[in-house]
């Protein structure tokens, strides 16, 4: 499959201030990221707060200026433009916010907000707008009557559907989904994920799926990248990453995520209290360091159980572990793959 969206050596700085007398350097929220998203896939980005995933998304969209590196869309280089025009060239990429209710103007009816996108992009005829909106609302599973509502009158799941409808109207090719299941009830979450899958097939979309919910990512993503402090530390197919994680951070992350244990076999003895298996894998010590004080060498080494002197001195480059699986760690070979409880096999 051809690459539809890609980045090489992407660096994004935030918060640089240039006053008359002093210059405060910004932080590198994204510090050398390579990415290649294939057309039609769901590419997951996983990481905790401060890892740079939202900044990465904004930079890919053109809302945040890149300090260095290249961004490609459908083969063309689209980075390096003036802020005013950067977004325009990437109209094929759209973004669904983490909090879709807050992404809608509270004073506008939902239908008007949907129509506005069409107006901005040249579709002004009211009849055509109505037709497209009805069609799209149906595609996301909402009654056309929802167009008359205000955002605060919708439930979380409905708001998410409207958020999707809004950008679907603009015929995107790549959709960046920022925490699409955060804050949703389990049953609503399942319905939304199912909808996303349907829409992907129906409209030929490619998803960049940003989430901290590892269970969901394992379920819906084809390939996944794990970010830590602005870098990608491991990348691979969902299966490889979750069954045989190589980077110590990935392992710690997977170990920390509480999992719903599979039902015990009939007649068997389940543990009376299944912990998340964290007994044998210690939790990550310390808080993640701030972006202003990035550790030398490998960024993760202060919290890494496998750290050696080499790790503090030299920043590891990405090495190939297997087909489509790469990891940025000096010692990945030494850490034998732990039989992870996150197997993709059904219980």
């Amino acid at each position, binding site marked *: 499959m051809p690459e539809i969206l890609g980045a090489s050596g992407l660096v994004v700085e935030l918060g640089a201030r240039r006053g008359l007398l002093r210059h405060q350097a910004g932080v590198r929220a994204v510090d050398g990221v390579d990415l290649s998203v294939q057309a039609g896939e769901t590419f997951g980005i996983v990481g905790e707060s401060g890892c740079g995933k939202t900044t990465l998304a904004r930079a890919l*969209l053109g*809302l945040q200026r890149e300090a260095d590196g290249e961004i490609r869309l459908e083969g063309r280089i689209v980075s390096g433009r003036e802020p005013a025009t950067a*977004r*325009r060239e990437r*109209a094929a990429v*759209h*973004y669904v*916010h983490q*909090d879709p209710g*807050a*992404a*809608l*103007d*509270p*004073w*506008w*009816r939902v239908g008007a907000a949907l129509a*506005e*996108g069409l107006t*901005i*992009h040249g579709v002004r005829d009211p009849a055509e707008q109505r037709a497209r909106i009805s069609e799209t609302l149906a595609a996301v*599973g*909402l*009654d056309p009557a929802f167009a*008359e*509502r*205000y955002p*605060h*009158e*919708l*439930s979380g*799941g*409905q708001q998410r*559907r409207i958020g999707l409808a*809004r*950008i679907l109207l*603009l015929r995107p090719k790549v959709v960046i989904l920022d925490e699409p299941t955060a804050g949703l009830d389990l049953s*609503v979450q399942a*319905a939304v994920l*199912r*909808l996303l899958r349907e829409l992907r097939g129906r409209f030929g979309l490619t998803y960049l799926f940003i989430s901290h919910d590892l269970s969901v990512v394992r379920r819906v993503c084809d390939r996944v990248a794990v970010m830590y402090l602005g870098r990608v530390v491991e990348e691979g197919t969902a299966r490889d990453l979750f069954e045989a994680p190589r980077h110590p951070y990935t392992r710690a992350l997977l170990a920390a995520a509480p999992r719903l244990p599979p039902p015990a076999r009939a007649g068997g003895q389940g543990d009376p209290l299944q912990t998340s298996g964290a007994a044998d894998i210690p939790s990550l010590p310390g808080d993640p360091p701030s972006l202003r004080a990035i550790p030398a060498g490998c960024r993760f080494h202060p919290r890494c159980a496998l750290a050696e002197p080499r790790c503090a001195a030299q920043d590891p480059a990405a090495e190939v572990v297997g087909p489509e699986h790469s990891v940025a760690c000096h010692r990945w070979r030494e850490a034998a793959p732990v039989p992870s409880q996150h197997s993709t096999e059904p219980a």
Partner: protein
Amino acid sequence: MSGIGLPSDRSGPVRSGSVQLPTFLRSGALRKLLRDPVATLGLAIVMFALIVAVFAPWLAPHPEDAYESHLLQRLQAPSAEFPFGTDNLGRDILSRVILGTRSALVVAVSVVGAAMLIGVPMGLVAGWKDSWLSELLMRVTDVFLAVPQLILALALGQLMAPGLTTAMVALALTYWPFFARTVFAETRRLRTSLFVDALASIGASPARILLLHVLPNAAPAILVRATIGMGFTILTAATLGFLGVGAAPPSPDWGLAISEARQHLPEAWWFPTFPGLAILLLVLGFNLLGDGLRDAADPRLRRSRR
């Protein structure tokens, strides 16, 4: 409402309670307003004042008292014939209060309207981006804020002919900075909000965002400022009239009446009292209405019945 077997979401809103769909000017907002007794009172007062102002010449029992004097009847206490008494020139105070409503409302609306026309665009432009222009605009605003209204009115009265128009110009020139500052603060707050970000992300131009989205969201704040301004203007215009740099005799202006009444206190207690009460009532009405309108117009606010 729920459909079994459908992957879609066909339910109504999950919340219990508000189903109102108010837009700023729609009847939904009105209905919401009317459920708030205090705001309804404000609305009633303002509507009452409006009707009085429009029909003043017909409502006033002695409309000719706007300009005629009847010295034989001067300074009579309230009676059946003259419910509010008569003033120092024998004019029926009730009629003059009624007639003065017009001038009070016209002044209030014109001043606040003019201040809005100047201040709101300034605030929008200044608040949108942090640039030298916004700095400049805000410093200009500060300069005007520093000028006391009365002093400016007096000074302008020297330059231009003293009178009601001069007073109105002075009031507008000193009130617009409040609008500018309010709108500036709202614009700055809103420009980092998620929905503005989303609009930029779907390609909306700054002009579109400012006029169609930031402005309506700033409307509640502007509205509060405007109704406070109405009350404030009426009070200040009355003060200017009192000082002699506003309305000129024989205008039935309320402030002027209070001024004229000074010398006849404390015997003719009715002379300043009724115009004073009129001012009080109208200012109160605007303030109550303003609070109520702001709450009613915001689509997000709802109240549960206690």
